[in-house]
């Protein structure tokens, strides 16, 4: 029987299978950041163990950094201490750090791919659940806890059971105004926030093949939001074109050799999946979430479910709890509802293509006066590219400030927070209670839908602007 791409890569990285236990899996690349690494560094120090393979680790500061005046010392004492601890740990243990002020600094899942660190066939981990992003290159990439960060420090391996495999096929052509963020929000709304728990997902089909690398990363990024261990897409010419010439991508003869190996990374025709889902691209409309988990999403013209549509008492109570938090009513529509904030950023949608999309909508127009914005590029490189393409002038003319790279209001660890009770159309990945600040009400959507709200001050069907 044939193998899935997941099986091919996983099997190649298994050092040992423990009987009735997990497998010892070798990790090629380990990405770290300031929030989930300090306890792992102190852990190995307490054991008196050195870092096993420091050359396979790359560090950056992203979660807990300001997005204005990064050239000045961080004001918040705890944040400063955490970022300084990363600097000190990296120096002490010989880890390459792209910290604040470095030209490569940025959100860990943005810089890995753009620097060519992320490559097909690799196993990649990071103490961050959105590590699934790197799966867009045909890598097995997933988030781990800090104990596992310590394991990789100590032995370049983790211990995990092999997950089941699921394939989601999306075939057809996307409708006007529909982008990759809508595809993944649609999938999660279909199968729920726990629908892929225990699985590793492969995305396939003609609609996926037609997407750019940036768009594929958005999809793989949110795999965790349906519970999946990770998500991946087999590499193809789009992948190789994106990678070639990037800083850490192989060059010359090494490139040719790697390329030949990467071309073997696909799911065999007779491979079996534990679960398979088929989606018609034409069925997908621009999407938006209305609740407090990413599975609570609907087509932008859709109506919120009625209370009666939930059979189970606990489900009913949970839905009512979410409605109360969001200040919404069962059965209502969302289009036309005023919003106060727009956040464009996060490891889901902060790449150059996202900024091009937003710029294409706001060009020559003005931001709605009632809207406050947080517009945050994913990396210094993205910020540089925004300037090089003159997109910064379009944003400035629209009355919108572009900030400096970091995770920002996606998780509200720094000062970029949404005030309690206010709505935010956000291109990020989670609409959990309090995620963007205590009491903040998050509506997840695509960069296009966010751009539309930026202009109108309300939830808007992007197709009304495009037509």
């Amino acid at each position, binding site marked *: 029987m044939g193998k899935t791409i997941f099986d091919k890569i996983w099997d190649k990285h298994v050092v040992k299978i423990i009987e009735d236990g997990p497998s010892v899996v070798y990790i090629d690349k380990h990405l770290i950041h300031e929030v*989930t690494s*300090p306890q792992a560094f102190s852990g190995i120090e307490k054991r008196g163990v050195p870092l096993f393979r420091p050359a396979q680790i790359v560090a950056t500061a992203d979660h807990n950094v300001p997005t204005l005046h990064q050239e000045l010392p961080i004001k918040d004492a705890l944040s400063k201490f955490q970022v300084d601890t990363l600097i000190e740990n990296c120096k002490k243990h010989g880890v390459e750090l792209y910290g604040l002020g470095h030209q490569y600094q940025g959100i860990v899942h943005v810089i890995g791919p753009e620097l060519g660190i992320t490559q097909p066939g690799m196993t990649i981990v990071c103490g961050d*659940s959105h590590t699934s992003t790197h799966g867009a290159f045909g890598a097995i990439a997933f988030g781990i806890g800090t*104990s596992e960060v*310590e394991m990789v420090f100590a032995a370049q391996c983790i211990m995990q059971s092999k997950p089941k495999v699921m394939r989601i096929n999306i075939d057809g052509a996307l409708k006007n105004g529909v982008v990759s963020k809508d595809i993944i929000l649609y999938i999660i709304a279909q199968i729920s926030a726990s629908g892929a728990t225990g699985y590793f997902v492969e995305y396939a089909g003609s609609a996926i093949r037609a997407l750019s690398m940036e768009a594929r990363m958005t999809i793989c990024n949110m795999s*965790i939001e349906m519970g999946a261990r990770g998500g991946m897409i087999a590499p193809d010419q789009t992948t190789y074109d994106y990678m070639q010439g990037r800083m850490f991508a192989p060059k010359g003869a090494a490139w040719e050799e790697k390329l030949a190996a990467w071309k073997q990374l696909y799911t065999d025709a007779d491979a079996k999946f534990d679960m398979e889902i088929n989606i018609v691209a034409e069925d997908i409309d621009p999407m938006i979430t209305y609740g407090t988990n990413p599975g609570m999403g609907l087509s932008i013209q859709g109506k919120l479910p009625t209370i009666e549509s939930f059979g189970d008492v606990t489900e009913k109570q*949970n839905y009512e709890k979410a409605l109360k938090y969001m200040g919404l009513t069962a059965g209502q529509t969302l289009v036309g509802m005023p919003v106060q904030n727009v956040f464009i950023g996060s490891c889901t949608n902060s790449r150059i293509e996202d900024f091009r999309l937003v710029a294409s909508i706001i060009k020559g127009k003005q931001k709605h006066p009632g809207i406050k914005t947080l517009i945050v590029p994913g990396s210094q490189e993205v910020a540089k590219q925004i300037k090089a393409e003159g997109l910064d002038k379009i944003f400035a003319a629209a009355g919108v400030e572009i900030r400096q790279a970091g995770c920002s209001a996606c998780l509200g660890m720094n000062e970029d927070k949404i005030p309690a009770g206010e709505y935010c159309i956000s291109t990020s990945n989670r609409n959990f209670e*309090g995620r963007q600040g205590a009491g903040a009400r998050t509506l997840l959507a695509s960069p296009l839908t966010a751009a539309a709200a930026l202009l109108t001050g309300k939830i808007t069907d992007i197709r009304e602007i495009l037509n």
Partner: protein
Amino acid sequence: MQSLQKIKSRFIPLRIENVDTDQIIPARFLKATTKDGFGKNLFRDWRYENDNEAQPKADFVLNQKQYAGEILVAAKNFGCGSSREHAAWSIQDYGFKVVVSSFFADIFKNNALNNGVLPVTVTDAFLQQIFAVGANDTLTVDLEKQTITIDATGATEKFDINSYKKTCLLNGYDDIDYLLSMKTEIEAYEKENQS
């Protein structure tokens, strides 16, 4: 890591689905550089009004005096979202040794096990039976036998755990000790596979 064998305890019923790790420990508490003291901020924004410990929310189970114990019982998909191990540290530091649910998110489950907190997955029907018993009733979780029992009714269910993890928990071993003992095999793997 602390070992864990058998626990008989009252429990705290948290009838909420999809409890994400942002609720278990909000991001603003992630600025710490040690693993200590997270228990006081467990479920912080569900526990207190205005982030103020002087204003406990009366409708939240951790604030209801009739409930106590070392076992947390939650509705399905517990621990979804962020991979922050701070969630497991908060639960452990608060004093929970076992979390029961009909469904756990993958990363949380691993994080809990790596901190000596046992995630016990039960059927939906059994979960409802637990929620139905009184605040003074106890549950017995026996790791050796892999059973969970509602002591008042005698209802018992078996739960899954692989024998490797079970041995680790029973004895308080952790994965890093195991991996360090495999150094030679890992080096051999590298020699064979480095291109």
